[in-house]
Structures are given as C-alpha cells and as structure tokens.
C-alpha cells in the first residue's frame, strides 16, 4: 500500500540557521501520526513543509492523498463571514457545485458537533472552543483524506482540549482520514494517534517512532496514563521532550 504522505530527507533553514535536517517519515492511509518534540524543535515548520506551504531547502515531499486540509493553532476564521460561510470558504476551491455546498456545510458542522443556530453567527460572537470547532468543520467540509494539525488545541483549557481531542478521534474514525498531528503534549499524542514520532531536539531527523497499542478511540484513561508514565520514565526516546531551553535556540 502506498503512503498517504512521504517525507524524504527534508531539510530547512531560516536565515542560514538550520532548523531541520534529514527528516524521513511515512504515514499510511487512515493513520494518525503524532509528531512530538520540544518547543522550537521545528515541528510546525515540518508541518508547513509537508502541507506545501513552505518550500524545503532539501528533500522531497510526496503526497499520496487526493485532498488535504489543515487546522492551525489559531482558528484563522474570516471575521467578516458567518460560521457557515467560513466552513463553506473551503468548498469554493473544492470543485463542489454551489447547490451541494449547504448540505456539505451542514454535514461538516454535524461532525464538528456545531449547533445549527451557531452557523449564522460571526466568529466574534463565538467562544474560543466554538471557533476551533468551526475551523475543524471547515477542514472536514472538503472531505480530506489527509489533515495537518498544527498544535490546534494548545490555546484551549484542559476540559475543552479533551472535548476537541474526542471530536478529532470520532471524526477520524468516521471520515477515515490520515493525519500528521503536531503537538508538544504527550498525553494528547497518546489519545489521538496510532503512532508517535519524536523529533530530534535540534531537528536532526526523527529521533524515533513508537507504535501505540489499539485504536485511538478504544484507548482508555488507564492505558493512556500508563503509557505516558512508561514513556517518560523508562523510554530514553522521550527523555528530552520537555528539556529544551528556547532561549538557546537560533
């Protein structure tokens, strides 16, 4: 089976300072891979390169998917458009006939568990969590077979973050998309992903990969907690994921 996304020896630099080197990663169709690493290790840059938003200095990105979407750390909604129009914004370029768009917007809103009355509201009328739900619905509306998540729930409080994670788990199960999920939260990675990739402290390749037992939706709290404890205390791969001092980064 060909990969949904293949990164081959990706390297990148900002202003002459290397931030990523020799990154190799393959993601299978329907697989969710969480990419963890300390702040400033180049996770977001890698996601942007993989999504085609940034041209890598070295290496090759081979997408095996038909259509992708991305969910950013901030919802990035158009302030002048209602929630429904924001979701529909993604459909303008998806070659979907205009008459079919309202149904697709409604379907995406259902997957993101948005209330119908919220669809007529402007982003300024919505809470932070609701805005992120709209961003998720916008991504799901194009029926992507690959989604890039760039630390989407970092700014949310703990309870809201869990609800959003559950939403992504359910949506991934229903829509069967593959995903690269960037996060620095190991518990989030353990809840959402099939596999965890740890980026090297200095962005020099993928330090290692761990396959997680079972499917994301079937993993209970005890399993997640046990895995977290084991990874942080026994597995040398995860030893440094919280260690970095961003002041020493280029």
């Amino acid at each position, binding site marked *: 089976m060909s990969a949904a996304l293949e990164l081959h020896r990706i390297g990148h630099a900002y202003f002459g300072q290397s931030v990523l080197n020799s990154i190799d990663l393959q993601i299978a169709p329907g697989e969710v891979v969480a990419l963890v690493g300390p702040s400033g290790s180049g996770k977001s840059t890698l996601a942007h390169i993989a*999504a085609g*938003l940034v041209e890598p200095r070295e290496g090759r990105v081979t997408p095996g998917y038909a259509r*992708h*979407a*991305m969910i*950013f750390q*901030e919802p*990035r909604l*158009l*302030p*002048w*458009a209602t929630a429904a129009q924001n979701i529909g*914004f*993604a459909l*303008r*370029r*998806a070659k979907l006939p205009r008459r079919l768009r309202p149904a697709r917007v409604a379907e995406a809103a259902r997957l993101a568990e948005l209330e119908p*009355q919220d669809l*007529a*509201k*402007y982003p*300024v*009328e919505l809470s932070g969590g609701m805005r992120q739900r709209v961003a998720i619905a*916008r991504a799901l509306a*194009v029926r992507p077979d690959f989604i*890039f998540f760039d630390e989407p729930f970092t700014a949310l409080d703990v309870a809201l973050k869990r609800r959003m994670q559950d939403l992504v788990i359910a949506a991934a199960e229903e829509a069967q998309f593959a995903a690269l999920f960037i996060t620095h939260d190991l518990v989030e990675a353990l809840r959402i992903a099939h596999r965890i990739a740890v980026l090297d402290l200095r962005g020099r390749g993928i330090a290692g990969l761990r396959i997680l037992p079972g499917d994301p939706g079937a993993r209970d709290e005890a399993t997640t907690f046990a895995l977290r404890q084991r990874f942080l205390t026994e597995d040398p791969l995860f030893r440094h994921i919280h260690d970095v001092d961003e002041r020493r980064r280029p």
Partner: protein
Amino acid sequence: MTRILADRAARLLDFLWSGWAGLAALALLFACWQAGHETWGDFILPDPLATLGATWSLAISSESRGLLLLTAQRALAGFTLAAFSGAVIGIIAGYAPAVMRLARPLLTVVLGVPPIAWIVLTMMWFGTSGATVAATILISATPVVFVAAAEGIASRDRGLGTMAEVFRYGALGRFWFIDLRQAAAPLFPALALALGTSFKVAVMAEMLANAGGVGGALARARAMLDVPQALAWVVLAVIALVVVEYGLIRPMQAEIEGWRRAAQPWGVKK
C-alpha cells in the same frame, strides 16, 4: 432571499432610527447659529430660517441645480480618479515594502503643499477648466486613500492567507477574498475623507479659477456681499456631499463591514 431582504430592511430602519442623534446635533447647530445671528446681526450672520429659505429658492431653480450638478460632477470625477489611483498604488506599496519606502517621503512632500498652491499651479497648467478642479482633487485626495490602502494591505493577517493557500486559493483568490477584504476596514473611512476633500477642493478651485459651479456662484455672492446667498450655497454643497456619501460610500461600507455590528454589545444577535 427573503432573509437577506429582511436583513437589509432591518439595517436601513436601524440606520434611519440612528438619525435622531444627527437631528439632535443639527438642532444644536441651528440653535448656536440663531444665537450668533441675534448677537452679531443680519449682515454678519443671517438667521437659519432665512438661509434655509434662500437654499430652497436655489434648490428649485434649474440654473442653480445645474451649477450644483457641475460641481458635484467635477468633485466625483476627481474623487474617482483619486480613489482609483490611491487604492492601486497603495495596494502595490502594501505588498512591496520598497515601494512603500520610496512613497513615504514623496507623500510627506505632497501632503505638505497646501491645496491652494496646487490650485494655482493647475490653473497655470490646465487653464480655468474642469481639468484644473479634477487635477487639484487628484493631488489633494490621493495621499489619504494611498496611505489607508497601503496600511490595510501591509497590516493584513497573513495567517488568513496561509489558511486560504491550504484550501487551494491561488494568489489572485487570496488577494480578492482575503487581502482586499482586510484592506477595506481602513479604506472606507479614507474614502469618506477623500470625498469630503473632493467637494471642498472642487468649490475652492472653482472659486479661485473662476470655473463656474458652486465656487463661481460663491464668488459672485462674495462680490455682492450677499451673505444669505453665500450661506445657501454652502448648505447646498454640504447637502450634495452628504447625499453622495450616504448614497454611495456608506451603503458600500455597511454591506462589506456589516459583521462589525455583531461585535458591538448592542449588535445584531442572530
């Protein structure tokens, strides 16, 4: 469709209702005017009712309407030129920092020259014609629109552009659906300001260049020391400006910037 029409009707009624504040301000102005009249007498400041009577006489005269129309046409022609050129160059400067760096000192120079100096120069270049009026407006009003368009583009939220790129919007699509919408916020107040400048400069240029229109009529009223007539022309010019601003600029702004009402505590809650 019904919902859209109902939304427009609600906004129009809301706007008309907000007119009470404007009427209150006008009543205050007329009260001050009346007080000034009673203090300084009829020759210096005719009473508001006499001025309104003179305004009405002018408004129903076809000759006066022709003069007003001529001034309005000149002001609008100059405004259109200024709005178009200011917006286009401003948008280019917003995207290209080098153009912005080059344009800034030029703007300082252009804005430093008083409009009256431009009128003298354009009179010498174009003679006493409508071109003098249009050229003066173009020079006076373009910088305001330029700065607003440039700032609007330069300070845009680039994250929205990246988001659009993810969803396969090309450069043109991102410009049209994202950047232009963001530039509209500072652009509309600048357009309203430029329109006001256009009318003021048009009247001034007509008066100095003896090019007819409201400015020419004002010059005649001044020569005959006819204060009520002069004030009546001023009132008519202001009415023409208000009609254009509230008939053209504000409805466009309300259409494009309507979402901001939702951010107000008393805004539209759906």
